[in-house]
């Protein structure tokens, strides 16, 4: 009885001691640029077993630490253990590294956050009931432009118990997930051939069967084997991949290793491999360089293209209903109204509009394809990531609005057109309307359109241009259809004063579009740029008024006024372009953010690592890929995401709302969009609480759809 009581008291004491001591022992250490901690997978240690503990690193933005082969420079994280007698630590289980280019060099390591588990062998002699302290003296080399060695002395108290182990309620999941995610050998066969020119590496096996893996990359354990900064060329085969990698210093000097070990990353998965010298298996090559990752669902073959073309056409049609196209619709509506009573003229105008749409779609697509071929992480709508383009576009919108307000006239007036007078200027106007529709509408990827563009960007140039062509046909189709249908045209009322009123009313969506673009510009270029743009807008408006004045005077001696106005306009536009081209053309990613977060819903900035960490905690995550220049995104934010039911749903589900802001260029976001078969925003991803694939929400949100998705995510 007394013995039992004392054991109980002892256990209580241990529990009390632990509860008091544990937080102090397990407190994270901030070493300057890293917050490090030593955490456990298991709640206690069983004699004669292996437990896993992990060193976690929260790394300051812009800084990184290193993998076991740090690449061209740097140094791997190292741990010096001080353990109780009989306890031994194994090697670090390294997470898959990321490439970190620094100038002409290439390093391998980790940014933001990494969990490095270590197996610890518990001796059979460990006594149940005792609490031991594991001490880790961890050395991190943490680098941004410069490198700083940082040191953390970490401790973790571990209780020994003689009962089946349970996961640690607080940190168990984190360590277990890191162990799951770490690259493992998955029965892959690897063969290499090495020469002074380089390394050829063929990997085959079940996980690689039938795949493409354009992002395949080999991280060697040895730091002298390959040229880390060199390009690794991938060739796909039916059963695997073959990589061709330029030689590093060892191979160059003829030191051919017996075997080649390392990690093969294929994008979202990574495997540990050990390659033996031998002949390259045929099953690992012969299918050429894999295309960039195809979207899930849409195949890469010709069926995929055919389907994508269909989607593109439907997407183009639907694009007409997207909020961003409304201002341009108003121009088209005004023009249609004017030509409705002259079928021939209406047809020509419709075709000119179609030509404007198609030429612009193809030009934009060509530029996008060229930029991507040059290795730039750009996506659909990329033109609006340049403040210079946005600034000029806002001035164009302003001019168009002023024109609709009859401040000045371009070519034939609406009244003139109504009398059936065709003119070249009128055609140019229709063509220009088409151009403007595409430039402004393109970033609002509509439903159907998004997967189509995703497929388009993975196709050879001809295939992608075909897809873009059909997108344009879809966008222009309603107008062309109306302008070719006398029956529909007859429904338009006869020309008259009502047209002038309509035109002036329709000027206001254009003013709205100009105001929106100015707002986007202010997020990209900041308030000094905004002041400049507003000044330019003033000059442009004044010039337009002068021009209109000279048109109305119609006296030859006043013609100089038109010339003067034109010069002023040019000066104003140049004044915007020069400072923007010099300084503000490419603000660094993250330096500005659009205020897309609503008042009700607290948001976090998106990062893949943060998503992984939150999922490890078992929380549902909603990621909003958005941009200030994406009107669909803004509408969704206001209509669906900023509503009280959605905020309540997030709270109930303990879900996290993350915003990935693509207003400015961001390669990481572009890549994630591509992984989901998208080339542009919006994209809404909902990750469930229990892991698994993310669910993609439609591009037009309703509060109900979001609430349902969040509720479902809490359960899956």
């Amino acid at each position: 009885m007394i013995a039992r009581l004392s054991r109980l008291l002892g256990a209580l004491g241990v529990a009390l001691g632990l509860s008091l001591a544990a937080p102090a022992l397990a407190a994270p250490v901030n070493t300057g640029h890293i917050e490090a901690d030593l955490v456990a997978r298991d709640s206690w240690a069983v004699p004669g077993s292996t437990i896993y503990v992990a060193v976690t690193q929260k790394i300051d933005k812009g800084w990184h630490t290193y993998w076991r082969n740090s690449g061209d420079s740097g140094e791997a994280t190292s741990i010096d253990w001080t353990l109780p007698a009989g306890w031994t630590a194994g090697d670090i289980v390294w997470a898959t590294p990321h490439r970190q280019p620094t100038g002409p060099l290439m390093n391998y390591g980790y940014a933001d956050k990494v969990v490095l588990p270590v197996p610890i062998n518990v001796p059979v002699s460990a006594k149940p009931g005792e609490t031991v302290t594991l001490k880790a003296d961890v050395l991190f080399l943490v680098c941004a432009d410069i490198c700083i060695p940082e040191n953390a002395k970490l401790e973790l108290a571990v209780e020994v118990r003689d009962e089946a182990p349970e996961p640690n309620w607080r940190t168990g999941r984190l360590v277990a997930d890191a162990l799951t995610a770490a690259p493992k050998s998955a029965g892959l066969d690897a063969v290499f051939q090495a020469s002074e020119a380089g390394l050829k590496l063929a990997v085959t096996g079940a996980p690689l069967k039938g795949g493409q893996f354009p992002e395949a990359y080999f991280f060697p354990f040895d730091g002298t084997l390959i040229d880390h900064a060199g390009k690794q060329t991938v060739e796909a085969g039916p059963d695997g991949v073959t990589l061709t990698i330029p030689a590093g210093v060892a191979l160059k000097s003829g030191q051919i290793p017996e075997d080649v070990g390392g990690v093969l990353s294929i994008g979202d998965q990574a495997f540990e491999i050990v390659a033996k010298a031998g002949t390259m298996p045929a099953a690992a090559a012969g299918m050429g360089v894999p295309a960039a990752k195809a979207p899930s669902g849409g195949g890469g073959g010709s069926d995929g293209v055919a389907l994508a073309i269909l989607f593109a056409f439907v997407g183009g049609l639907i694009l007409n209903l997207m909020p961003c196209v409304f201002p341009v619709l108003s121009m088209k509506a005004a023009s249609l109204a004017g030509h409705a009573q002259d079928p021939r003229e209406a047809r020509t105008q419709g075709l000119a509009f179609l030509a404007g749409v198609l030429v612009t779609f193809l030009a934009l697509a060509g530029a996008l394809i060229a930029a991507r071929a040059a290795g730039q992480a750009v996506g659909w709508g990329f033109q609006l990531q340049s403040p210079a383009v946005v600034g000029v576009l806002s001035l164009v919108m302003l001019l168009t609005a002023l024109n609709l307000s009859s401040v000045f006239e371009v070519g034939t007036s609406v009244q003139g057109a109504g009398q059936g007078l065709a003119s070249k200027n009128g055609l140019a106007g229709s063509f220009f309307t088409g151009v403007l529709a595409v430039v402004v509408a393109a970033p609002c990827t509509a439903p159907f359109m998004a997967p189509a563009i995703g497929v388009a960007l993975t196709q050879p140039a001809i295939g992608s241009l075909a897809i873009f062509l059909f997108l344009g046909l879809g966008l222009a189709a309603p107008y062309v259809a109306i302008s070719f249908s006398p029956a529909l045209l007859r429904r338009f009322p006869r020309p008259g004063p009502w047209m002038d009123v309509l035109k002036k009313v329709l000027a206001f969506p254009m003013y709205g579009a100009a105001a929106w673009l100015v707002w986007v510009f202010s997020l990209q270029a900041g308030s000094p740029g905004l002041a400049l743009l507003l000044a330019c807008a003033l000059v442009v408006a004044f010039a337009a008024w002068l021009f209109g004045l000279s048109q109305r005077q119609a006296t030859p001696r006043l013609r100089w006024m038109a010339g003067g106005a034109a010069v002023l306009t040019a000066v104003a536009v140049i004044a915007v372009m020069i400072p923007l081209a010099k300084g503000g053309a490419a603000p660094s990613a993250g330096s500005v953010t659009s205020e897309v977060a609503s008042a009700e819903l607290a948001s976090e900035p998106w990062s893949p690592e943060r998503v992984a960490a939150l999922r490890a905690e078992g929380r549902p995550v909603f990621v909003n890929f958005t941009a200030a220049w994406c009107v669909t995104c803004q509408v969704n934010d206001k209509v669906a995401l900023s509503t009280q039911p959605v905020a309540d749903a997030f709270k109930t589900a303990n879900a996290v709302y993350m915003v990935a802001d693509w207003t400015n260029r961001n390669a990481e976001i572009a890549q994630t969009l591509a992984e989901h078969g998208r080339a542009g925003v919006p994209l809404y991803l909902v990750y469930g609480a229990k892991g698994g694939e993310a669910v993609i929400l439609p591009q037009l949100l309703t509060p109900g759809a979001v609430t349902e998705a969040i509720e479902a995510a809490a359960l899956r």
Partner: protein
Amino acid sequence: MSLTRRLLVAAAPILSLAPSLALAAPAPAFSVKDADGKTRSLSEFKGKTVVLEWVNEGCPYVKKHYSGNMQALQKAATADGVVWLSVVSSAPGEQGYFADGAAAKKWAAANKAAPSAILLDPDGKMGMAYGAKTTPHMYVIDKTGQLVYQGGIDDKPTNKVEDIKGAKNYVTAALADVKAGRKPVVAVSRPYGCSVKYKA
């Protein structure tokens, strides 16, 4: 220097980094101003063993070896008739950049560094031609102008001063081999340290 080599050296910055050089091949020629403003080139050291040491005074790994190790190596080598050139390829604005020769000499004096010369390579041409990746990154060129060693300074790739003791110094070994008329046993090793701060 042959036309091809001249072209290669000139093209090096464009071809990004010339990957690591083949061994037992002529070392790339260079023509770089030293801390005294004098132009130094490889050809003037013909008949002498030359050590190239890439340096960045702010790098923790350089600091580790300048705790006395590097200076001792420099003194021993130069006393033996070896030409020791410390090369600074840091670009303006980057860590380790010296605004002028005076700044470089001031640093050398404060640290009792004893190279034969400090070469200032702010545009990174010489560094790129050699494929210098880290500070320190060491190269040994024999009397005939052949590159016989390239890589790390020793076999303990850490930034801890206490690791110098007990490390195998590859440069000392290579110099001993060259002096004895042998090819160095370890001719290539993995350089370690901070990245060379080339201009972006």
